[in-house]
């Protein structure tokens, strides 16, 4: 008999092998979602260790903690891991878990494709880390890729990247790319074809809209990366010349192909973060989201404009003034719908009755931090200023502000918000707040001060630096922040584990929320809903709880 809950008592009566077998062969979106998320947490730890090694090496000038060869592998693996094996699995994990529940469906459109996609993605990460043992480099036994996470040509050519370490990068991402595209097909099909009666596109929760646009971006953006990687394999193994500058090939065309993926990729990561904020902020402010139609329009606008800004990563490569100017304009333009979203979240809080449980703490910090991240992005959109700040620690600070200060904070909020639903238990609010403050302090110590070395001329991807350039004290402070962030993550992991084992029962709807998933049990039964829901507004549970004043009168 298959399990339909995750309660410990039921699980513990069946043999471990049977339980593991069920998890490995599952096609249930909720289990696959959890698998994606647990997988991501393991790789978060690995990526964090890589970052810690780098920060310890950079704590003072001319440090000799690790060799340049090891350091270069660290930044390559850190970036590749965090983007492809932490952030993407988290995004797909939460989408998998939540989308069918929030649209009143029983599962995703293609459950077997779902499982296949997960295992292809998982294989990618395992393969990448195998490179530490199997990559055959010039400088010693085994080596991971060391070409940077964007693997510019011709550094990736066989001449400059001997052995197989670059191939581990290429092939692992090709595998996870297949998984990503499969999941995106699933998400789009599920949302367009499996909404419960009454849930028109205009009545879907914003989280569903944002995941729909995100999946569209995956389809349009991950494919070019796969194409470019196939070309790289042709160059490295079949003697092709796609990026072979000695034969007339172009290093710049790799950059275009990569960034046509690379920029929409960051929207793939941030739109689900916006999704979490758009669900959590209203519930904890006790108000409907302000401006739902505008939020949808802004999301679609971000999706479209986001496909046209990629060469702002290439301002220094010598494009014409016309090309530079175009990308300045498109990049600044995307700030408009993004800013509109911040204002709408602010307006949602305005006049509300805000409860500062842990999810809301993370969301409010996200708002402040994303504001800063967006504004430093605007400064980088100014091409001449980018000629100074590009490829420096200012850029590293900017994108970590977006990814950690923006995206990761929202992901933490989502963990705390939906943990009771997925596990049936309440987490410890005290540990949650401790996690928040430790991580908040660590984040700001590291990433606020990281802007300064960039302004003072420190480029990125250097394993050591010269004294006397004014960079020393800032690097020291940046490294100290790591301690607090690590402590915060440990408290987070401890909270998840402790609460899963010993937390109080959560009940269906601990937050008094308004979307469909809170109407079923915690955790949901394997079939999600005993009867197919049908809805009349964007907040079906508000309508049930406030039958005297339902939303559908106002929408």
């Amino acid at each position: 008999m298959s399990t339909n809950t995750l309660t410990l008592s039921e699980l513990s009566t069946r043999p471990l092998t049977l339980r593991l077998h069920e998890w490995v062969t599952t096609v249930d979106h909720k289990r696959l979602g959890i698998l994606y998320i647990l997988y991501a947490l393991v790789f978060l730890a690995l990526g964090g260790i890589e970052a810690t090694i780098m920060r310890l090496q950079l704590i003072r000038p001319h440090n000799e903690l690790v060799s340049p060869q090891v350091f270069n592998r660290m930044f390559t693996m850190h970036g590749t891991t965090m983007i492809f094996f932490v952030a993407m699995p988290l995004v797909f994990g939460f989408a998998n878990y939540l989308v069918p529940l929030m649209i009143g469906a029983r599962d995703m459109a293609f459950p077997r494709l779902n499982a296949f996609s997960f295992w292809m993605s998982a294989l990618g990460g395992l393969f990448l880390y195998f490179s530490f043992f199997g990559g055959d480099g010039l400088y010693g036994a085994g080596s991971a890729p060391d070409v940077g996470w964007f693997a510019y040509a011709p550094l990736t050519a066989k001449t400059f990247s001997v052995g197989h370490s670059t191939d581990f990068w290429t092939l692992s991402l090709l595998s996870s790319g297949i998984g990503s595209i499969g999941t995106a097909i699933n998400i789009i099909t599920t949302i367009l074809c499996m909404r419960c009666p009454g849930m028109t596109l205009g009545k879907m929760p914003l989280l569903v809209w944002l995941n729909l646009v995100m999946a569209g971006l995956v389809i349009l953006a991950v494919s070019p990366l796969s194409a470019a990687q196939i070309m790289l394999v042709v160059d490295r193994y079949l003697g092709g010349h796609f990026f072979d500058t000695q034969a007339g090939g172009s290093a710049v065309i790799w950059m275009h192909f990569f960034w046509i993926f690379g920029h929409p990729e960051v929207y793939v990561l941030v739109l689900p973060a916006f999704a979490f904020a758009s669900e959590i902020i209203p519930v904890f402010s006790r108000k409907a989201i302000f401006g739902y139609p505008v939020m949808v329009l802004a999301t679609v606008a971000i999706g479209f404009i986001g496909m046209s800004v990629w060469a702002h990563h290439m301002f220094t490569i010598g494009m014409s003034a016309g090309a530079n100017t175009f990308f300045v304009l498109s990049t600044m333009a995307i700030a408009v719908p993004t800013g509109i979203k911040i204002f709408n979240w602010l307006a949602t809080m305005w006049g509300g009755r805000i409860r500062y449980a842990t999810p809301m703490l993370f969301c409010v910090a996200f708002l402040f931090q994303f504001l800063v991240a967006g504004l430093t992005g605007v400064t980088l959109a100014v091409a001449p200023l980018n000629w100074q700040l590009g490829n420096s620690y200012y850029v590293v600070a900017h994108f970590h502000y977006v990814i950690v200060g923006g995206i990761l904070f929202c992901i933490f909020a989502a963990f705390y918000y939906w943990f009771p639903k997925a596990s049936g238990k309440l987490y410890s609010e005290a540990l949650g707040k401790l996690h928040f403050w430790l991580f908040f302090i660590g984040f700001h110590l590291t990433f606020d001060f990281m802007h300064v070395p960039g302004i003072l001329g420190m480029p990125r991807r250097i394993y050591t630096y010269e004294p006397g350039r004014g960079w020393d004290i800032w690097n020291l402070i940046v490294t100290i922040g790591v301690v607090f962030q690590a402590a915060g993550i440990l408290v987070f992991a401890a909270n998840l584990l402790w609460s899963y084992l010993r937390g109080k029962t959560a009940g269906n709807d601990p937050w008094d929320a308004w979307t469909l998933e809170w109407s079923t049990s915690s955790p949901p039964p394997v079939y999600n809903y005993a009867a197919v829901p049908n809805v009349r507004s964007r907040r079906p549970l508000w309508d049930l709880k406030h039958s005297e004043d339902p939303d559908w009168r106002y929408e």
Partner: protein
Amino acid sequence: MSPTSIFAPVSTPAQSIFGLSIFVLVTVAAIFVVVFSLLAYAAVKYRNKQGDDSSEPAQVYGSTQVELAWTVIPVLIVVALFLATTRVILAIQNAPHPSGAVEVIVTGHQYWWEYRYPKLNIVTANELHVPVSDPAHPTPTFLTLLSADTDHSFWVPRLGGKTDLIPNHPNQMWIDPHETGLFLGQCAQYCGTQHAKMLLRVYVQSPEDFERWVHEQQQSAQPTSSAGERVFESAACVNCHTVSGTPAVGKFGPDLTHLMSRETLASGAVKNTPEILRLWIKNPDAIKPGSKMPAMGLNDPDLDAVTAYLETLR
């Protein structure tokens, strides 16, 4: 004061960027202050107080006027920023190229800089000399940027923004420093193992000092028939290095004709002293692990001899 701060410009491109950056930073700071204050206000003022009843606050679903306002205002700000930016892009990228300008062809290598002055018949490495430019009668230096291997980037913050050196994709940039002195920077595009020690040193000199330097660099080396010179020729140094006026015409490594006119070795990584030079020849990995110069496996007498020979290359 940091010698590599982008906020201490001494050359026109860096100064244009600096001026634009003030406008941008003030605008962005103003936006930050306004939005931050509103967020902070809302976060504090609308907290649920303990004594509040459990009724829900008034539900507000949206407002077309407000949405319009906070769309139009950002669009106007974007237009202003865009116009200011375009002006500077055109000023820097389409600057006129006067015939009296100094021309340098910069070729990036893993992990050193090659400098050729075609009109002056000079080839040197790692330390770039340019004349100071008087704003009233500018004598800029135009750099053509090439690469012999992977991507590099030329970044000396006080002189200008960075431009990349990409193989098969020549680029151009210019500087016109208004002050004499030594200006520092380094490669700013990851190019391989020793990217971190591909440092830049730009010596901006008075017209007289620059003339003198040019004249010295134009001289060929005198053959010495010393033991060291024979070691140099037989130990394969000549395969990679050029010493003009001798049979050494290798192009893979830096030109050594005037090695002793340079203050540093290994592209700014270490000082140019006899002891360090000897160590570099003996074991480059001790100074710059992963550099492309192999340890030639010379014994001590040969090392002493070849170091002494190189010390004559002024």
